[in-house]
């Protein structure tokens, strides 16, 4: 369970100019809410991914700020209007300061 979170991203590799594409992302993470107690009655400290950022060719296109109410292994989908070829960078920011990054290329025909 405590392995390094693995991001998974699904989006078309190619799109027509002006086409609306859906981007689906998933990352394995416990999203410990800070509300649960362990067997000894002590509160398990919060450790969640608090932010997800999607950028295209270095420009931020979509951002999500997650609260502890987001389920474990958080899923996020959103849309992007394809205009030019380039590369997506998806960044997940953890409470402990680490960043998890995934990159995907998009070719616009």
């Amino acid at each position, binding site marked *: *369970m405590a392995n390094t979170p693995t991001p998974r991203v699904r989006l078309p590799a190619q799109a027509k100019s002006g086409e*609306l594409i859906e981007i689906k992302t998933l990352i394995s993470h416990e999203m410990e*809410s800070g*509300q*649960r*107690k*362990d*067997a000894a009655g002590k509160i398990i400290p919060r450790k969640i991914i608090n932010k997800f950022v999607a950028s*295209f060719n270095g*420009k*931020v*296109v*979509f*951002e*999500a*700020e*997650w*609260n*502890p*109410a*987001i*389920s*474990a292994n*958080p*899923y*996020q*989908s*959103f*849309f*992007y*209007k394809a*205009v030019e070829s380039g590369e997506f960078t998806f960044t997940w920011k953890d409470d402990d300061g680490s960043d998890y990054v995934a990159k995907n290329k998009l070719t616009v025909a």
Partner: protein
Amino acid sequence: MKLKAVAKTRREALALAGIAGLAALIAPRISLADEQVVAAEIKKLYGDKKIESGRIKLDVPEIAENGLVVPVTVDVESPMTEQDYVKAVHIFADGNPLPGIVSYKFTPACGKASASTRMRLAQTQNIVCIAEMSNGNLHMAKASVKVTIGGCGG
């Protein structure tokens, strides 16, 4: 062994949530107070600005069998051009220990102001969604979700 431990705590979490649900039935004032918490959160963001209804499609299940994973989709009607787009969307829940669920920032590059995720709900409650347009107008939508705990799906 580890898996077993997780299942145990999960069961405990469900039991706790069950107690919380029961408490809400007995004392409806508690959920009313939480509604005020959501209102206070919105006030913190936008002050006393007028909030209109409409333009938001908030898609949540009427009945959620498992409060740990409840799908939520928000879709805001907008041309998403540089002049007129949806700037931000905030989603709150009035029956959770913390009111905030998620805040989105959209840009015209999105082409469509729509996003889906999965959330945790502690009990049956209302989901409140606020959308901020690029011209500053605010829109709101509400939906209620019945959370059945320990039901057939639990």
